[in-house]
């Protein structure tokens, strides 16, 4: 059997392959040769074969059959074998493999080897990918090596300890004694890895953190030496002495100084020194400054230092280097909440970054700009942000549009400005706004009563220009449906009213129905809008025709609407005006209702809650959920009766299609410690009303607010009289029968108007 080909020979051969198929063929051939070589237990060439296997693995081919061979190499006496064996182990034998644990014994032996480079290989492998079990078994060995005087091994042991702690946090304690003298080392490698180890321990355990706070003076001293000492060729990077160590120390100081006044004070001077003395012409200096700024912002630094830090970030923003600008924007984003005023001073620079060519910088600048918007700068900022919205990449438009809506809602100086801003967003980025913006916008428009005419006019004009942006089209359709009468009567005050006829408006809406650009949802909006105009326009016949055509539409949703609207024209024509009348002002879903109810539960009960237990937490949320289900209609719920621990709440819905019917759901709850059985609720209304009581959910009202009995009442109020009700409650409580009569007069006006 000829000797297996050498590694470099194989690489050369494989690279000559002209196609993927050719490469695969070569690889398969070689894999077969390697497999037979493994089977023959060939010791001489095992190393070479595994190396080739690792190369093929990097190309993406499977190499699992080499796992055991790696183990054999690790166990070999030859350093070459061990080197390749451990490399193979790190690439092929991570903790997910079954044979991973077989390495443990070899690693243990090699940790005690007489040659430090073998020990190094073992430490490296353990520290990179040792499993939890392996770490548990070998932690003792690592701890021993952490105390050695050999700096080459000590630094590796420190990082190995870090890995052990990450895998098995409970073992952290055992490394504590060995950390005692770590910082007195002169060797930078050991110093660096020790700082990493200390950082890891402090991050994981508050006790360790307090314990290590006493190291702050020592860390400050080391950092000072690094800055003040002269040129050190071994650690110099562009004139700065060991920037890696400096950054690591700054990070540890950050953790130690956080929330601790004394430590923060102790590091104040050195931070100021680093901040002012570090050379900023190269990336490495800026890396240190960046870390310093992060530390200053996180600890309890005095205000002068904080301002210094923010100013450094401000200077970073003007740097030519994109990376530095990016990093500055990210940091400013983190501090904008806590140091808002200081960041505001750099607002114009930040806004300039919106025009940067780099996508990551633009995004950060956008986020930061939104964070800086307030009542004072809203007009100026919005101008810039809208300009940005016009010209930015599509990926940004959705987020930018949402941000604009939010900012406008919070800080709009006037309703007209608000509507104009929304219009601008809809027309420039209309297809990118989020789905929930449409209902939110409609609500906003409804509530700006004085702007209805202006809004519908602007939306109509926008539709004439472009019907491709669905959210814009949907909002516009809805508005035209609602306020079309204002449109044709030319009532606009804010700007020159346009002259438009009913037919022209209907042309536009019908155009939306047939256009290929309209989505099914949009078509639904336009059909409904056309229908609504039947009570606002005089061209009812035209509308009837349109509606009947769509009665046979393929789109099920459109068809259903058209059929129901048709019915409205034919059988229920007397209801049409009421049904299609102007929408009332919509309350926002976060109304007062739920919180009031929650507060009265179990606390403001006048009838003493005898139980000494606190009311269960689940009950309020049940209440809130049922309340929230109905609040969106806009009629607030009410408490109809509350006595002796029995509370009855009413929630309201409008019945469809008859708006004269109020659907009331009663919710009965019992806060006493005994349940109420045989519970019966009866109601009576004045003669001008009609009442229908549906079946209750149950006859037992559980104790301690643990459940609710619900029942639906339908009240027909054709004459729109003020609703009044007499209720009678009977139940059995603690063995005795209880009966009570009450009048309910506090119905909210919306429930009967």
């Amino acid at each position: 059997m000829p000797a297996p080909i050498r590694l470099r020979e194989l690489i050369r051969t494989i690279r000559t392959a002209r196609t993927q198929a050719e490469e695969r063929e070569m690889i398969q051939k070689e894999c077969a040769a390697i497999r037979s070589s493994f089977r023959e237990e060939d010791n001489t060439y095992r190393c070479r074969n595994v190396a080739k296997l690792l190369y093929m693995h990097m190309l993406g081919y499977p190499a699992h059959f080499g796992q055991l061979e790696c183990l054999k190499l690790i166990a070999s006496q030859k350093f070459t074998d061990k080197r390749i064996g451990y490399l193979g182990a790190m690439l092929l034998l991570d903790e997910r493999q079954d044979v991973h644990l077989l390495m443990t014994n070899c690693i243990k032996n090699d940790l005690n080897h007489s040659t430090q480079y073998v020990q190094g290989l073992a430490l490296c492998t353990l520290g990179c990918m040792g499993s939890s079990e392996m770490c548990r078994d070998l932690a003792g060995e690592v701890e021993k090596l952490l105390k050695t005087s050999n700096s080459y091994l000590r630094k590796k042991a420190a990082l190995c300890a870090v890995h052990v702690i990450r895998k098995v946090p409970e073992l952290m304690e055992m490394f504590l004694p060995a950390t005692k003298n770590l910082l007195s080392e002169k060797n930078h490698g050991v110093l660096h890895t020790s700082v990493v180890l200390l950082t890891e321990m402090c991050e994981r355990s508050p006790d360790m953190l307090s314990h290590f706070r006493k190291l702050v003076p020592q860390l400050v001293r080391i950092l000072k030496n690094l800055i003040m000492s002269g040129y050190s060729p071994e650690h110099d990077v562009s004139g700065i002495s060991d920037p890696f160590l400096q950054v690591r120390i700054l990070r540890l100081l950050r953790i130690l100084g956080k929330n601790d006044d004394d430590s923060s004070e102790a590091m104040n001077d050195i931070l100021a020194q680093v901040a002012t003395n570090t050379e900023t012409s190269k990336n490495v200096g800026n890396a240190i400054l960046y870390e310093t700024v992060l530390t200053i912002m996180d600890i309890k630094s005095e205000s002068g230092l904080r301002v210094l830090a923010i100013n450094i970030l401000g200077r970073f923003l003007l740097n030519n280097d994109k990376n530095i600008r990016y990093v500055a924007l990210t940091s400013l984003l983190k501090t904008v909440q806590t140091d808002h005023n200081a960041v505001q001073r750099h607002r114009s620079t930040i806004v300039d970054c919106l025009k940067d060519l780099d996508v990551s910088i633009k995004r950060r600048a956008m986020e930061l700009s939104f964070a800086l918007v307030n009542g004072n700068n809203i007009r100026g900022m919005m101008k810039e942000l809208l300009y940005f919205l016009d010209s930015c990449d599509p990926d940004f438009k959705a987020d930018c549009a949402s941000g604009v809506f939010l900012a406008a809602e919070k800080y709009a100086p006037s309703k007209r400005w608000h509507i104009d801003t929304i219009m601008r967003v809809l027309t420039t980025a209309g297809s990118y706004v989020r789905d929930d913006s449409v209902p939110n916008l409609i609500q906003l428009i409804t509530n700006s009563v004085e702007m209805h005419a202006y809004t519908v006019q602007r939306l109509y004009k926008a539709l004439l220009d472009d019907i491709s942006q669905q959210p814009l089209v949907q909002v516009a359709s809805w508005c035209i449906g609602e306020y079309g009468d204002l449109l044709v009567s030319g009532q606009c005050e804010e700007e020159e009213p346009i002259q438009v006829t009913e037919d022209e408006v209907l042309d536009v809406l019908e155009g939306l129905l047939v256009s290929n650009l309209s989505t099914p949802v949009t078509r639904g909006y336009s059909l409904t809008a056309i229908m609504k105009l039947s009570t606002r326009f005089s061209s009812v016949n035209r509308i009837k025709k349109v509606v009947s055509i769509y009665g046979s539409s393929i789109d099920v949703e459109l068809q259903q609407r058209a059929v129901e609207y048709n019915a409205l024209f034919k059988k229920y024509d007397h209801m049409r005006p009421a049904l299609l009348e102007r929408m009332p002002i919509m309350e926002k879903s976060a109304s007062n209702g739920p919180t009031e109810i929650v507060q009265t539960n179990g606390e403001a009960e006048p009838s003493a809650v005898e139980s000494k237990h606190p009311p269960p937490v689940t009950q309020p949320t049940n209440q809130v959920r049922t309340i929230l289900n109905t609040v969106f209609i806009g009629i607030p719920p009410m408490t109809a009766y509350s006595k002796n621990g029995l509370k009855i709440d009413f929630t309201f819905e409008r019945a469809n299609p008859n708006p004269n019917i109020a659907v009331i759901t009663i919710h009965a709850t019992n806060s006493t410690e005994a349940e109420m059985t045989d519970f019966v609720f009866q109601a009576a209304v004045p003669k001008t009303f009609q009442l229908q009581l549906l079946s209750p959910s149950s006859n037992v009202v559980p104790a301690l607010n643990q459940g609710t009995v619900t029942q639906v009442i339908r009240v027909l109020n054709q004459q729109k009289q003020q609703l009044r009700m007499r209720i009678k409650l009977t139940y059995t409580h603690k063995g005795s029968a209880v009966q009570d009569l009450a009048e309910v007069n506090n119905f909210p006006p919306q429930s009967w108007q």
Partner: protein
Amino acid sequence: MMRFMLLFSRQGRLRLQKWFTAISEREKKKIIREMTTMVLARPPRTCNFLRWKDLKIVYKRYASLYFCLGVEDEENELLALEIIHRYVELLDKYFGNVCELDIIFNFEKAYFILDEFLMGGEIQETSKQIVNRAIESSDMLQEDDHSEWYDVELFG
């Protein structure tokens, strides 16, 4: 900590992969695919940082090779660039004017050098000379495999 380091060519061929956490082969392949796609798609003169899932991706191109580091959120991106640069310097010193072919044909050496510089996702040694000396001594040990072991002291 650093989660991974990848080296790949402008055509997207992988030249080195170092993983500092245990993840499945499938997951590794997915990450490699996504990294190469993302980084190679970056227009010139953009910044060297990207956000990907919960990680920061720091990348830099040296000649025909892209060096790509995936680091956790609290890592200093500007320093990560220095880490990449330091590794390139180490390779350069070892191979003498390193180029992509050196890394292709001597990938195991590239790993050995990396393993003297980084470990467990952290920096192991901040001195270039010490890393170089360690590699040289280890290489010498390999040559002496025919004879018995002897202790090699680290000079200095």
